[in-house]
């Protein structure tokens, strides 16, 4: 798998990370180095091996269906750059 500059630009855009035009070649090269390194894993034969999902033999923790949280509008909104009438206020998103 090889990442070119336009793919790097697209990934950056999807992740909402601004990357200047002239930084793209270096970014693409870095992606390729990382992917190339990981690619080595493909050389391992894992036929019939169950994927390991955790290093400890744990079962997914579950909780009962009870309301134990919430009612903290002020705290939820505390870090918002703008909040009005209990809502987060964000720049207009038009469909």
């Amino acid at each position, binding site marked *: 798998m090889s990442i070119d500059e336009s793919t790097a630009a697209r990934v950056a855009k999807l992740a909402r990370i601004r990357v200047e035009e002239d930084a793209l070649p270096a970014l693409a090269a870095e992606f390729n180095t990382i992917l190339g390194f990981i690619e080595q894993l493909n050389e391992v034969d894992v036929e019939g091996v169950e994927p390991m999902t955790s290093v400890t033999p744990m079962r997914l923790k579950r909780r009962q269906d009870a309301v134990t*949280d919430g009612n903290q509008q002020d705290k*939820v909104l505390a870090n918002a750059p703008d909040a009005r009438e209990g809502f*987060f206020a964000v720049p*207009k998103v038009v469909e």
Partner: protein
Amino acid sequence: MLDLTFEAPKPKVIAGAKYDWELVIGMEIHAQVSSKSKLFSGASTEFGAEPNSNVAFVDAAMPGMLPVINEFCVEQAVRTGLGLKAEINLMSAFDRKNYFYPDLPQGYQISQLYHPIVGEGEVIVDMGAGIARKVRIERIHLEQDAGKSIHDMDPNMSFVDLNRTGVALMEIVSRPDIRGPEEAAAYVGKLRQILRYLGTCDGNMQNGNLRADVNVSVCRPGDYERYQETQDFSHLGTRCEIKNMNSMRFIQAAIEYEARRQIKILEEGGKVDQETRLYDPDKNETRSMRSKEEAHDYRYFPDPDLLPLEIEQAWVDDIKATLPELPDEKKARFMSAFGLTDYDASVLTADVESATYFEAVAEGRDGKTAANWVINELFGRLKKDDHDITTSPVSPAQLGGIVDLIAKGDISGKIAKDLFEIVYTEGGDPAEIVEARGMKQVTDTGAIEAAVDEVIAANPAQVEKAKANPKLAGWFVGQVMKATGGKANPKAVNDLVSAKLGL
């Protein structure tokens, strides 16, 4: 064994300017799990709360917060799967679906792309007596709902409420087995009915607790059969997805519009672009949601915060043991055990409450009479007052009492309706009311005979006319009924009048 056989309905055919076309429809239904708290947090799911008050830090995606799954939600997904006769996957896993939107603070939705909890099942969609479409279910997975954005409170800002963020949804994905707008609406209706029977989703479409994404494509007659034979999608047309519909009427209108739009493009030699569209009920049209296109690259990957979800077969079996009788089985049983028509059985099994009510009335009585009274008198009266069956002022025991009085011959059908109105508005025991208010039908032939004699003696001219024209006997019957306050047994009166007049 109950008879659950049926014939497939004909697909809808739309005549274009040049050719005939058929529709192919698949649906993704988002059904909100009827849980008290969210899928991965302990915040309430209650509708209509103050904005951002039902929000845990997990829902607001505060750094360092970790999701913990709500076991009840898992149970409801399994229960739904079992209700749709689907395979349950004892091992499923959660993935992150990445996209940016202000009402999605995590920047991703936790969903189940690669290993859903429920596999293939089916829904039988009734389209009239003995006609039904079998719609295959591809999968059901658990996922988080997003928040709500409000765009019309300020000209320059959008307002975001995270109360719905993280509420558990079951996404129920069908195969493209639906062949027309009416079938699509009926499919949603049937699924909603099953979910409500199971109690896993309240089915409230107005509040958005049940919403549908509809995939529509068109093809020429014969193409769909080729697809069914081979399961090769290349026989079908390019589909468009109409997002987020929460009204049966709009679903039908949107499909109709969208099919015609695609037909026009194809007949003019164009090509349908695969895209996401939004239905505008005010203009009755669908339009492209270009903003969603780029976001379609979701870069799914397994959620590292959550271990795979492993459940035990014994637990699934326990859930299965608590499943209620479902609509198809209940309807078939009502038809065979009570001799009801397809239509009456459908009406009475539309929801569990109506079915339970009817069964209580029909128990030990004539099923057809009970069905008539529940459907025609009770439902009609409740509708007039905007009541539903759960708030009916007449209990099954009271209605049963009325049916008993008719069966015994104590009251006529006409008096029964008056009695029903009294019970409905004033309450009370029907038998006692009949006794106390002297509503009992007179079956004593002596008393009726006396009334008949009186009417005949008082109207010699009418007697002559009736002898010449036997149809006029009805007038005497009417007079006798009037004289007895409607309490005389109409059949007895009829017989006596005919005999006395020598007809």
